[in-house]
């Protein structure tokens, strides 16, 4: 988020398109996970488009509430892990059986059982590191990235549902969903897309 411009809850809504670059958001701020989960489910069922939901900790059931799919990063782990196994076995074969075979205690140059421990370690190492690299890439996380919280306290004790104000956005409906789920604050924000 590069500095959303905050307006008061009673501010007039500027017509969409006044600033071509900025999107407008309708935000409900909650103080506990149960309210935010219930409100998110209600918003999805009412057909609102989520910009995002900001949470101080992982709230279980939020994916279902928002209607987003489970992360696909498991595939990265699987493929990178398989690559790790392959690299380890191929490397050990190259070194021990191809490039410089040595007779060590009469063992087979390609001593597969003896190569399993390192194959396992490299599977874990490459699988794990690739998954974390993919996490950073897909969430655009990098050291020193500058962000400002969309609402103060979303990394502490506040939960914020951020709806996109686009098309025929039914503000009264959204406001009533937020308020009926004990929203602490209802805000209108405009700013660049996070």
């Amino acid at each position: 988020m590069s500095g959303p411009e905050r307006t008061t809850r009673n501010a007039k809504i500027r017509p969409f398109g006044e600033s071509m670059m900025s999107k407008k958001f309708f935000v409900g701020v909650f103080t506990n996970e149960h309210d935010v989960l219930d409100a998110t489910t209600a918003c999805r069922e009412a057909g609102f488009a989520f910009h995002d939901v900001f949470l101080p900790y992982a709230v279980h059931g939020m994916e279902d509430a928002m209607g987003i799919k489970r992360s696909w990063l498991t595939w990265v782990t699987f493929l990178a892990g398989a690559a790790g196994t392959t690299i380890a076995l191929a490397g050990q074969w190259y070194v021990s059986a191809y490039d410089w075979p040595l007779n060590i205690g009469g063992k087979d140059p390609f001593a597969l059982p003896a190569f399993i421990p390192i194959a396992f370690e490299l599977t874990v190492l490459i699988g794990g590191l690739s998954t974390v690299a993919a996490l950073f890439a897909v969430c655009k996380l990098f050291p020193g990235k500058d962000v400002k919280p969309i609402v103060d306290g979303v990394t502490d004790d506040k939960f914020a549902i951020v709806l996109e104000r686009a098309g025929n956005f039914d503000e009264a409906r959204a406001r009533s969903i937020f308020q009926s789920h004990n929203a602490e604050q209802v805000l209108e924000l405009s700013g660049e897309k996070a």
Partner: protein
Amino acid sequence: MSHPVYSPLREPLVYGNKSLGQVTTDVCGVLERKPSKEWWLGFMAATSILGLGALCVAYQIGTGIGTWGLNRTVGWAFDITNFVFWIGIGHAGTLISAVLFLLRQKWRTSINRSAEAMTLFAVACAGLFPLIHMGRPWLGYWVFPYPNFRGPVWPNFRSPLLWDVFAISTYGTISAVFWYVGLIPDLATIRDRAKTTMRKAIYGFLAMGWNGSAKAWRHYEVTYLILAGLATPLVFSVHSIVSMDFATSVIPGWHTTIFPPYFVAGAIFSGFAMVLTLLLITRKVLHYEDYITVDHIDKMCKVTLVFGSLVGLAYGTEFLIAWYSGSQYEGYTFINRATGPFGWTYWVMVSCNVIAPQFFWFRKFRRHIPLIFVLSLVINVGMWFERFVIILTSLHRDYLPSSWSLYYPTLIEVLTLLGSFGLFFTLFLVFVRVLPPIAFGEVKGVMSYARSQKHSHRHEAAKHVGAGAHH
């Protein structure tokens, strides 16, 4: 709507009925205040010992490892004992952070961060010993297979010592990454509450732009689960491989198939003792008694008891098999182990590791903090002796009586061990000052445990609102 329901059946995981904001303040407040006098005292003691250890290491590398008490019969003793000891300590951290996560043990959230930090520092201490043992540590990178102009000369992939290189490197790397990924949301919290520009810059840099987005949380949660899933078999593999350094040799007392599970159990046992030692001090000094509660201590004592009993069972099994195998060398090694010149080390080991944890059968003792602290120290000592016994008593009298020998450590070796404790405690003390020792983000996620039941009305309420929506 949802109202908190207080469960009469379960104790809450965090005491004091705290709000989410209070959790942040309680944990981060410690980092934002000036360090206490106790911290400075501890830090100065630890760095002094570390300095002494560093001098010893410099001396023995400058002079050569002939400064040790080794001889032609006993070629491995103190250094490898320290290595196995420290690696073992690390295992409890991974058990708490990864295995308990997979088992959905929610109480782990208060202790996993510091236990993982302990793992990293223990692995750092462990890694130093093989490096020192090389005698020329600047050539340490020769253990890795890379194309070189010496032939190329490759390491021997059929040797467990090389498996160990890969196991320890992977373990250290994955533990560090797992720990850091777990830290990111908490670092973002510290960034957002930082008062000074400097603090904001440093924690902002480390927090990598985390903003609490649910779209990011969904990938984050899966990554965390995967890392836990990878770290779990990894931790078992690491100490299994360490045990194979011994078990694949032909030395009586080492050449046994029980070694991998026996070493893993011992590692978790010693690691839990060290977690108890550290956390009992941390919770007291940093006033985290509401987070690291007596119930946490109680549960850790139970785990310690289970693994202590497994270790005790392994001691018995080793003796049984030494007799049942009919191998006279194996049989003699074990009789010598208990009654020979180093028999006292065996009985120190048995008293510390088998007898001491038996107190934990009783709830009263599992909640008696001073007693637990003493017992945790006793177990730490016992587990160091376990490795010493396994290594030394198997080596000093093997097949040929003409080459039997004794071994006594030199002052240099003892001070190097002491120095590794200095390094360990220095790192831990710095950690509790600069990073949150409690994973408060995760703690917030379990706050409602036993304080409010699952919201049975939630779905009905949501449907009710949804049904009236205009599209």
